[in-house]
């Protein structure tokens, strides 16, 4: 298991460095999809299959297509930047080191004493099957116990889609006809 984790993290780092170094945006878009797929693999090793599923479908799938769709409207090569990369690199290293230092204070992964497992989670696990009759507790929490949140999320997707359509000037079939004229 540790070998799988190490392999996935090694590939993640290689992909991230390649994304930062490459100037060809087509290659960057494909590698970003690969990055999401590797993250989905990591979520599976953490037993978060619902999250992994979403990451693989959205991050590895449609968002790659959206990036390619945007890329078709843009130049293929990233312009070289004039300023030096030392300061951003230093900032990333310091932030990364602070985050890694923060993980030392976290409870061990899967520890039953972790605060996250002492809050509402035991309550959901005890009640979900009897109250909702839905065996997948993740679905029961998302759709029923946290139904307000999911309604809000669906509204966000709705508003986001409407905004993109307005920004890109989408008006259904009318666009195509204008081009044909």
């Amino acid at each position, binding site marked *: 298991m540790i070998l799988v984790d190490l392999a996935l993290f090694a590939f993640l780092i290689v992909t991230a460095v390649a994304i930062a170094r490459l100037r060809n945006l087509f290659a960057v878009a494909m590698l970003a999809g690969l990055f999401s797929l590797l993250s989905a693999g990591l979520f599976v090793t953490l037993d978060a299959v619902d999250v992994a599923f979403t990451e693989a*479908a959205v991050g590895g799938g449609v968002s790659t297509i959206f990036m390619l*769709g945007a890329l*078709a409207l843009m130049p293929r090569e990233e312009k070289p930047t004039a300023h030096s990369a030392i300061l951003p690199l230093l900032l990333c290293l310091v932030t990364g080191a602070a985050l890694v230092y923060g993980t030392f204070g976290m409870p061990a992964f899967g520890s039953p004493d972790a605060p996250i497992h002492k809050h509402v989670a035991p309550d959901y696990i005890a009640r979900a099957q009897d109250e909702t*009759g839905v065996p997948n507790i*993740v679905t029961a929490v998302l*759709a029923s116990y946290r139904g307000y949140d*999911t309604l809000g999320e669906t509204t966000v997707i709705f508003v986001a889609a409407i905004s993109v359509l307005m920004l890109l000037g989408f008006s259904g079939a009318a666009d*195509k006809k204008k081009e044909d004229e």
Partner: protein
Amino acid sequence: MHHHLVLRTIARALLPAIFLYALYVQWHGDYGPGGGFQAGVIFAVGFILYALIYGVDALNRVVPPRLFVGLLAIGLFIYAGTGFATLLLGGNFLDYSALAQDPVHGQEWGILIVELGVGITVASAMTLIFLAFAGRTASVADKDW
């Protein structure tokens, strides 16, 4: 894409499987990983694959873009409407127990219905965003990628 015989043949074989899998993920979310969000994305991927292989015009003939715009709103309406239905039936907003005599049955029904609403909105949103990009893009020759 007319000269890509391999892509067209494979897409024809894959499309029914993709839509069937999307339906499975939609209705099986109660028992396994998945649910409305993932199913909606997979549905959209099916439509997008169709548009990529056979052209956006072909997809527009199968499903008019206006239908996707309508479904985008209908999905959210189904979700919020379930909330108001439970209010009218004497429960709290989105308290599905009010939907049936037996509260557990009500919960099962409510979860299925709102997941369907999520799936419809997500599938329409993803397909429409793709269509909005594709509508602005002049066709890119293979060698230019």
